[in-house]
C-alpha cells in the first residue's frame, strides 16, 4: 500500500511537472526537467523493507506510466527505473541520505545513474539517440534539476512513509530519513 501510494504520488507529480515545465520561459530551463521517476525508484530502493520485489515492481510500474506520458518506447523507463531501484537497494546498507547536501548529492547521483543506464539500455536495444553532445548536455541539465528538486521530493515521500508508520518510532524514523 505504501509503495502504491508513493508510485501514485510520483506519477501525479510527473504529470504536473510535464504540464508545467513546458510553460517555463527559458529553453535551458525547459530542458532541465527534474527526473522524479529516478528519485522515486531510488527512494523505493533505499527504503525497501525486506523484500525487494515490491520496490522494483513499483519502479517498473512508474517507469511504464512515465513511458506513456513522455512518449518514449514503452518499457524503456520501466526497465531503467527497475534497474535503478535494484542498484539503490544494493546501496541501502551503505548510504544514509540525510541533510540537504547529502540529499542533493544523492539525487544528482541517481539522476546521473539513470542517465547512464538509459544510455546503455538504448544502446543495447538500438533505440534512436540524439548526438553525444546533446545527450550529455541533457543529462547534465537533468542532473542539476533533479539535485535541486530532490530535497522536496524525498521530504514528500518521507511524509508518506510516516503516514504509513505503525508506531511513533517508525514515524519519527521515517521523517528523519532513517527508514526502514
Amino acid at each position, binding site marked *: 500500500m505504501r509503495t502504491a501510494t508513493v508510485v501514485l504520488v510520483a*506519477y*501525479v507529480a510527473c*504529470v*504536473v511537472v*510535464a*504540464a*508545467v515545465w513546458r*510553460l517555463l*520561459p527559458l529553453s535551458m530551463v525547459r530542458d532541465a526537467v527534474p527526473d522524479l521517476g529516478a528519485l522515486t525508484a531510488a527512494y523505493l530502493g533505499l527504503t525497501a523493507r*525486506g*523484500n*525487494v*520485489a515490491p520496490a*522494483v*515492481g513499483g519502479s*517498473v510500474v512508474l*517507469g*511504464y*506510466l512515465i513511458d*506513456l*506520458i513522455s512518449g518514449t*518506447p*514503452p*518499457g*524503456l523507463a*520501466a*526497465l531503467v527505473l*527497475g*534497474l535503478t531501484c*535494484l542498484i539503490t537497494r544494493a546501496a541501502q546498507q551503505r548510504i544514509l541520505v540525510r541533510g540537504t547536501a547529502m540529499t542533493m548529492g544523492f539525487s544528482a547521483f541517481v539522476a546521473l545513474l539513470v542517465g547512464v543506464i538509459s544510455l546503455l*539500455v538504448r544502446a543495447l*536495444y*538500438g*533505440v534512436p539517440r540524439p548526438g553525444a553532445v546533446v545527450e550529455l548536455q541533457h543529462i547534465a541539465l537533468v542532473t542539476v534539476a533533479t539535485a535541486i528538486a530532490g530535497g522536496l521530493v524525498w521530504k514528500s515521500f518521507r511524509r508518506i512513509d510516516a503516514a504509513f508508520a505503525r508506531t511513533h518510532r517508525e514515524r519519527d524514523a521515517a521523517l528523519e530519513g532513517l527508514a526502514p
Partner: protein
Amino acid sequence: MTLRRRIVDWSLTGLLLLIPALVLRASLSRGEPSAVDETVLRITAPLQTAVSWIAEGIGGVWGSYVALIDVESENRELREDNEKLRKELASMTRRAYDVQALEELALVKKRIAADMIGARVIGAPLTPFRVVRLRIDRGANEIQPNMAVIAGTGPVGVIDKVFGDYADVVLVSDTRSKIDVVVKRTGRRGFLLGLGRDDSYACTITSLELASQTDQRAQVGDEIVTSGVGSIFPPGLVIGKITKLDGDDGMFQKVEVEPSVDVSRVRAVMVLLAPPPPADPDAKTRKRSEAAFGARAL
C-alpha cells in the same frame, strides 16, 4: 527472511525486470502502442488533461502578469523616447521657423533694391493680449530712429529708440505709426494709422477717398500695400487686409485693417538703412547708341 522467501523475492524481481525488457523489445519491433498501452493511456488521460488545463490556466495568468511587467517597462522607455522626441521636434520646429523667416527675409532683400541690414528680435514686451513693441539686436552704430523695419510678410514698424546695441521698434499697430498706403485693387491712397488697441493689432486708414462708383470703394478683403510716397517704406509691400468697413463721413471711407505680419511670431527682421532709389522713368524704353563716326551697324 528465509532462503525460500529470498529466492521467491529475487525471482519475482527478476521477472519484474524481465517484463519491461520484453515490453521494450516488443514495442520497438511493433513501433506503435499496444492495446494495453492505449487502455492505460485512456485511463490516465483525464488526469493529464486536467493537470494541463490547470497548468496552462495558471501559466496564462503568469504570462499575462509577466507581459504586463514588460509592458510597463516598455511604456516607461516609450515615454522617455516620446519626451526626447518631443523636445527634438520643438527644437526642429523652432529651427524650421527660423529658416522660414530667414528665407522670407532673403526674398525681401532680393525684392527690395535698398540698403538693408538683418536683425534678430531679442525682446517683445507684451500686454496681456498682444506685443507692444519689438526689441532688436542692432544698435546706434548701425541703425538710427525712423528707419523702416520689414519682416518676410510685410512692414513691421519703424525704429523708435536706439540705445547701445539695441533698438526698439514701434509697430504698425501703434498709434504713433503713420504709413502712406494704397488699396491695391482700387489704387486709392490713405494713411494707415495704428489703433493701439490692447487686444489686437488693428489699424485704420484715414483720408481714404470715398469713390462715387461702388466698385471703386474699399471692400472687406482688399489688400493694402505701401504707396512708397512720402514714406520710408518702399512701394508695393503688402501691409494687411481690410477686415471691417466703418462707414464713411460723406468724403472719406473708414476701414479697419488687420496687418499681415504676426508680430508675436517675428524672430528676424530687415532694417532699411536707406530708402530705395526712385524708379527709373526710362527703364522700359530701349535706346540704341549712335553709330560711331557715322559707320553703319552690321
